[in-house]
């Protein structure tokens, strides 16, 4: 019924589909912090205009129900970002089951074209050891991102988003696309750019997908 209403509404006013999608997200004012549309210029939270290409729906739902800290030092443009985690950071808004579900559905409809296709096949033990080594040494990822070591302990810096649960949170193709062409997703992040060959890129995405909070020991 609601979809029908949006359909008629958008058809009537010839609204672009992204705007027509802004139903619950708009009601809940998510756009006051997040970018929901490529044309928006200012935002103080993570860009969500490609949320449907980046996240897994189950994770989104769970996050919207009870929040979770992904960026221990806050968002990269926060005025206090370089001063470290703040005690009085407000928790993320959370929502009852039904609303979380509706929000997730709308977020999942915000997609942009992908460039890489990554197999869901886990890495072999040897490949995993190789990429873990590069994650820590060749590319210094661990200096800014939390991840899990072989003993299942959380390790790493805090200026980047935590990757401890990345395998449940992100889509593999997106991880590869992010590493390959970050400019598609952000005009200016604080992460160094890398030039990985296509095979390494895909192995990195598969490595990141193996990081899951169930593996914390």
């Amino acid at each position, binding site marked *: 019924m609601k979809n029908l209403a949006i359909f008629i509404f958008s058809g009537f006013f010839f609204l672009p589909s992204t705007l027509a999608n802004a139903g619950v997200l708009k009601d809940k004012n998510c756009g006051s912090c997040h970018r929901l549309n490529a044309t928006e210029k200012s935002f103080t939270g993570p860009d969500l205009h490609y949320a449907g290409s980046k996240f897994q729906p189950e994770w989104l739902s769970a996050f919207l129900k009870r929040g979770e800290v992904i960026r221990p*030092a806050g968002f990269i443009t926060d005025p206090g970002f*370089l001063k470290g985690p703040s005690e009085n950071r407000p928790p993320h808004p959370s929502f009852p089951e039904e609303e979380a579900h509706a929000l997730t559905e709308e977020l999942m409809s915000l997609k942009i074209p992908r460039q890489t296709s990554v197999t869901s096949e886990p890495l072999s033990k040897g490949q995993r050891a190789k990429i873990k080594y590069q994650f820590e*040494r060749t590319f*210094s990822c661990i200096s800014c991102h939390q991840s899990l*070591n072989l003993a299942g302990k959380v390790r790493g810096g805090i200026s980047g988003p935590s990757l401890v649960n990345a395998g449940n949170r992100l889509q593999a193709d997106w991880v590869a696309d992010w590493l390959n062409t970050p400019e598609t997703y952000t005009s200016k992040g604080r992460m160094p750019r*890398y030039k990985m060959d296509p095979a390494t890129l895909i192995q990195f995405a598969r490595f990141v997908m193996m990081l899951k909070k169930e593996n914390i020991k």
Partner: protein
Amino acid sequence: MLLTILVTGCGENEQARPAIKPPTQQEVKQASPLVPQQKLAQVTENTRQTYQWYCAQCHGMKGKGDGINAKFLTVPPRNHTKAEYLETRTDEQLFEAIKFGGLSVGRAPCMPAWGHTLNEDAIASLVQYIRELCQCEAL
């Protein structure tokens, strides 16, 4: 000191590691042999902003090595205000550490490579900015 760096990773102290070597300084050099005239580099407002945006997350807002990631690294970020150490490094060495990462100059892998993020002029001006922070020159 160097030995510990060689046997440990960046975020932990495990002994086990596979036998894959990062590119040596020699290999990296061959891939990109250019080192511009660094003495000509100027420190501008842009240089300071670049430092705050990228480097301060580890090296700290004032370059004292106390950025927000510092306490999670096995080798602490270099304190860029310490003349005693920085005097012992040439501008070329600092340039290479920034461009190719810590490993390329025999330092810790926790220091990332910025060569695909910043162009050579920007890196050369960062070297001069670090010289300003330590108020020192290569001996």
